């Protein structure tokens, strides 16, 4: 792979699994500077496979930035709003990179690999921005390296995912808890096996070296075929994450929104020292926010999409951030920002979808929760 900082200007990058995707009949699209599979066959079938059996995703476009050295903990505490001191080796934490205004530069996972050694996993579209930002924050006694090229990342998700992976590893998956990980082996190849995901199902994310990725991909697909495992593309990934109420950078969160607005205040901790955005977030905790992210269901025929306006008496009071057809609920769902005073579950909304006005209703998120 080439240097990830060149993403914007050059031809789309390819993950180590590019050939595997073509082999599986993928329709490829450009996403965040990468040529990625959007679907292999039916994205609705891929979605249901993850909810009912298992799905295998290539998410190698994600970025991995290593932070290590005696100053790593202090640096990450200053950089992110969650409490990194709560981590131990073998545990991961959902957090963010925030501006001084408390708005998102990106959301991310922090993995503690060992004492003074962390791996920060970021969105593909933001790797260059995140890395530059991380370097710009003072980091005494701390080394920051963009290791995105050193990892391929597969996500094996769904109720059958443990059963499938168990055949290929001696790691005790049953006792690997959510947001825990282990440095293990799969078919003799080193792998970080992480009990994390972006689908609302149980599952694992597997960090492996790029050269081992095609073999692992083919092995898992063959192994899980009788269990109903399907390769799943970005299309299913998006409908799954939205049903599960998980935010996506560029939609629910961006450099104009804060964790309190996005309903992610649980990632913001104040029992720690100063960090970027802290004073704004303290003020928002104290006084509340003017707008809030809500989930909605469309009550008519049609789908609201990102950018569509929420109307009250013909005035725009907010915008849709994501909208899709939900294969599980069999209705159109979405997320939007609305004035806090309007953010009441059960209340009706009017959304302007092209030339039409669609009735919708505010509902609790997540839209879908596994049993």
């Amino acid at each position: 792979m080439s240097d990830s900082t060149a993403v914007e200007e050059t031809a789309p990058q390819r993950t180590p699994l590019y050939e595997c995707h073509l082999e599986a009949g993928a329709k490829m699209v450009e996403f965040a500077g990468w040529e990625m599979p959007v679907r292999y066959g039916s994205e609705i079938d891929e979605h249901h496979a993850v909810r009912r059996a298992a799905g295998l995703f290539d998410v190698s476009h994600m970025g991995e930035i290593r932070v290590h050295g005696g100053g790593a903990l202090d640096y990450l505490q200053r950089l992110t709003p969650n409490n990194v001191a709560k981590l131990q080796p073998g545990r991961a934490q959902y957090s963010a990179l925030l501006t001084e205004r408390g708005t998102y530069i990106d959301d991310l996972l922090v993995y503690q690999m060992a004492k003074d050694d962390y791996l920060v996993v970021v969105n593909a579209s933001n790797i260059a921005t995140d890395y530059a930002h991380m370097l710009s924050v003072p980091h005494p006694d701390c080394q920051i390296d963009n290791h995105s090229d050193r990892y391929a990342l597969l996500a094996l998700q769904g109720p059958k995912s443990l059963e499938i992976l168990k055949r290929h590893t001696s790691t005790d998956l049953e006792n690997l808890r959510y947001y825990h990980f282990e440095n293990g082996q799969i078919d003799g190849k080193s792998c970080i096996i992480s009990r994390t995901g972006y689908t609302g199902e149980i599952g694992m994310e597997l960090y492996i070296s790029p050269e081992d990725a095609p073999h692992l991909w083919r092995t898992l697909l063959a192994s899980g075929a009788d269990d109903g495992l399907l390769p799943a593309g970005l299309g299913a990934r998006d409908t799954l994450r939205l049903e599960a109420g998980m935010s996506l950078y560029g939609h629910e969160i961006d450099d104009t929104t804060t964790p309190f607005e996005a309903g992610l205040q649980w990632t913001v901790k104040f029992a720690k020292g100063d960090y970027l955005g802290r004073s704004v977030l303290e003020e928002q905790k104290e006084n509340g926010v003017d707008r809030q992210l809500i989930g909605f269901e469309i009550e008519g025929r049609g789908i609201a999409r990102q950018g569509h306006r929420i109307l009250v008496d013909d005035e725009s009071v907010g915008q849709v951030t994501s909208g899709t057809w939900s294969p599980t609920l069999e209705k159109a769902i979405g997320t939007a920002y609305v004035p806090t005073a309007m953010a009441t579950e059960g209340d009706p909304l009017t959304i302007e979808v092209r030339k039409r006005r669609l009735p919708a209703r505010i509902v609790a998120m997540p839209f879908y929760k596994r049993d």
Partner: protein
Amino acid sequence: MYPSEYLYSKEHEWILVEGDTCTLGITSYAQSELGEVVFVELPEVGASFNSEDEIGSIESVKAVAEIYTPLSGEIVEVNSDLEDAPEVVNDDPHIEGWLVKIKMTDPSQLEDLMDAEAYQEMVDEAS
């Protein structure tokens, strides 16, 4: 793959001409680009349109495509089966997945359409 008795528009629609009545649908290429169709919004029977007007839309899980008529005329029939079975647009785009029938008012507009061979060439270049 593309029926030779149809004409085709640049917007990936097919048109079957029978006298002055034209049946319109989207091509197999168009449905495959869109992905699974979940809603089809069609015009009212009796509505009149000019060529290049938007007459409806097709929503898939991930995208929406507006339907533009290449022909001026009046809508004389719509495929109301698609309301309950929009997936037919994916399964059988060239026959059962037809969208509307238009009584055309200006047959000279047919001259702007492509035959199957020219359409196939356009699709080959796009993919």
